């Protein structure tokens, strides 16, 4: 075929595609024709972009009920004025980008949120700044949604008048990437979530948990940082979670945990660092988990392993300068296995120089049991008397679990 005969075909093709690919842009600005965002959305056709120019728009209960892109330019702020929800997304494939959402209502009857996604799938929320909302981003019954690079902060002081930064309820295959959450009740909250991927987020200074995670199987979270949250991180009632390369730091308090695992089964906890927490890793009623290649530095208790946890494997972790390495609440140990870890409190020797200590290490000190019984005795930590008692117990375990030991303690840090 000659080129000349192709040209009409191409032209016709282009004409056919044009209405599909062409999307109108509707501009909302303080001094333009359209001054309200809701008005802009109402005028848009599915697939259009609503561009919001710089300025503060006091509006609430904005409904996005068709597939549009809501795009901010400059410092475009939607201020809910503590009246209700700010933005509610009801349409699939909506995109919200580069905009600021402030001041949703706080209340006990409704879960008011800066951005609520209810029953809409494949929504994308990116580069949004949420300030002082009750809930930040609230996803309910959503699939395939992506939250990326959002900055979510709140400054409410009490658990009762503060909501969660990112709240997920009954969602599937959601991706949460590189967000920052601070000052909310729970930084991230997951309930009945399937297959979420959570990476590169930072969650700090939240009133309760950095991440609060329940009934959410097959999720993976990696490279997140959870710092200085009221209760640390809680992961509960879930199977098959992958917790990889996260950083848990500075969670201080009588019930603050770097990470609390309760009824977690068949999960991976690998490559994480636990630094400066009151309790690094707390495990209760958790079974068949693999804890490998983690770094426990300067925690009060590196690992608290309750006796109702069974068949957990602790391999090749580093325990450095923790006040207590492992503590437990019973003399029994049900097949939890410690192997090839590095313990900075190990006092054995390595005569054949193969890098493995010749005598097993018992990470549960007698003193940790005394503290378990009488917490006040914590004041005697690092006393010569306590060291003497510990040494005596190590020779002949009477009160500490006999089988909880690392038979191949490493002489050098393993990571």
């Amino acid at each position, binding site marked *: 075929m000659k080129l000349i005969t192709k040209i009409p075909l191409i032209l016709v093709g282009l004409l056919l595609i044009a209405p599909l690919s062409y999307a109108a842009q509707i501009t909302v600005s303080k001094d333009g024709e359209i001054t309200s965002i809701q008005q802009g959305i109402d005028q848009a056709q599915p697939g259009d972009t609503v561009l919001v120019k710089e300025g503060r728009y006091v509006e609430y209960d904005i409904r996005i009920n068709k597939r549009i892109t809501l795009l901010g330019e400059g410092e475009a702020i939607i201020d809910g004025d503590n009246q209700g929800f700010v933005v509610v997304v009801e349409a699939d494939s909506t995109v919200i980008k580069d905009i600021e959402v402030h001041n949703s209502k706080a209340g006990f009857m409704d879960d008011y949120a800066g951005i609520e996604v209810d029953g809409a799938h494949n929504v994308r929320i990116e580069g949004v700044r949420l300030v002082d909302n009750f809930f930040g981003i609230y996803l309910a019954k959503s699939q395939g949604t992506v939250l990326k690079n959002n900055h979510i902060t709140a400054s409410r002081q009490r658990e009762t008048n503060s909501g969660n930064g990112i709240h997920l309820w009954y969602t599937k295959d959601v991706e949460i990437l590189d967000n920052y959450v601070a000052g909310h009740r729970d930084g991230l909250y997951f309930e009945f979530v399937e297959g979420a991927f959570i990476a590169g987020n930072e969650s700090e200074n939240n009133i309760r948990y950095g991440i609060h995670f329940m009934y959410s199987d097959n999720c993976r979270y990696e490279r997140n940082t959870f710092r200085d949250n009221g209760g640390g991180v809680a992961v509960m009632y879930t199977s098959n979670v992958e917790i990889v390369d996260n950083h848990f730091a500075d969670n*201080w308090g009588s019930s603050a945990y770097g990470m609390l695992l309760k009824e977690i089964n068949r999960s991976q906890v690998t490559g994480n660092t636990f630094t400066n927490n009151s309790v690094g890793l707390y495990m209760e009623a958790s079974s068949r988990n693999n804890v490998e290649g983690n770094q426990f530095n300067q925690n*009060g208790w590196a690992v608290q392993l309750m006796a109702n946890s069974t068949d957990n494997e602790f391999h090749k972790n580093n325990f450095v300068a923790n006040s207590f390495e492992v503590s437990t609440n019973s003399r029994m140990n049900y097949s939890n296995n410690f192997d090839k870890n590095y313990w900075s409190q190990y006092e054995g020797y390595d005569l054949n120089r193969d890098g493995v200590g010749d005598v097993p290490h018992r990470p549960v000190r007698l003193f940790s049991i005394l503290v378990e019984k009488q917490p006040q005795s914590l004041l005697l930590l690092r006393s010569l008397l306590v060291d003497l008692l510990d040494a005596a117990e190590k020779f002949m375990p009477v009160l500490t679990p006999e089988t909880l030991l690392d038979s191949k303690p490493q002489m050098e840090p393993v990571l």
Partner: protein
Amino acid sequence: MKALTILKYQWKDLLRGKWIVGYGLIYLLIADAMIRFGNAGPKAMLSISNIMLLLIPLVGMIYGALYLYQSREFTELLLAQPIDRPSLFWGLFGGLAIPLALAFALGTAIPMIYTGMIVTANLQSILLILMLGIALTLLFTGLGFWFGLKFFEDRVKGLGFALVSWLFLAVLYDGLILLAVFAFGDYPIEKPMLALALANPIDLARITVLLEFDISALMGYTGAVFNRFFGSMLGISVALSCLMLWLGIPLWRSQRQFEKKDF
């Protein structure tokens, strides 16, 4: 100024005796070994502070008493000179306590400098350990002087008292606290416990170390009393002022004794 002159003679005497160099070398070796095996991290600092809590009170007290006995002739000779007694006392005390403190400080600091730990580790922790070691040296040398002067004629008794009181303060005292905790654990005993701990200079120093290195564990305790005490500047300031009291009282007592003593 006379005190300074005496102090100078004392230093010369001490250095000639060589043992002070040995004392410094012990710290040098320990610190070097700890840093080598502990990878210059907080673990090394903790080990050094443990050694410090063990060794300084023992050496300070025993040598404080022993030195008075050894330099009896020297003291009596100086007493015959026109020197007032307070100057002589402070000269003698400074002449012993300051070199001891320096031996500790240099012995621990030098390995930290040549291993580069002073840059990599937390400077605040290093300074805390050095200051605490110096304060403990002054404190326990003072206590040693007190025992030495009290039992000036009966050396065995003086040394015995120094040894027994070290054993008491370092081990038995904590045993008593532990017993009290288990006997009265059901009552709100945090405040009396804190008071008891602050009444013992070794415990006091130990708690200051805890405040620096184990604060994450201490904050894990459920009681509000501890949390308020440890979680604020209050803890550090109360501990420091108690330490000052412990430094002041034995020295004041021994100076009084020295002034009144009929040599």
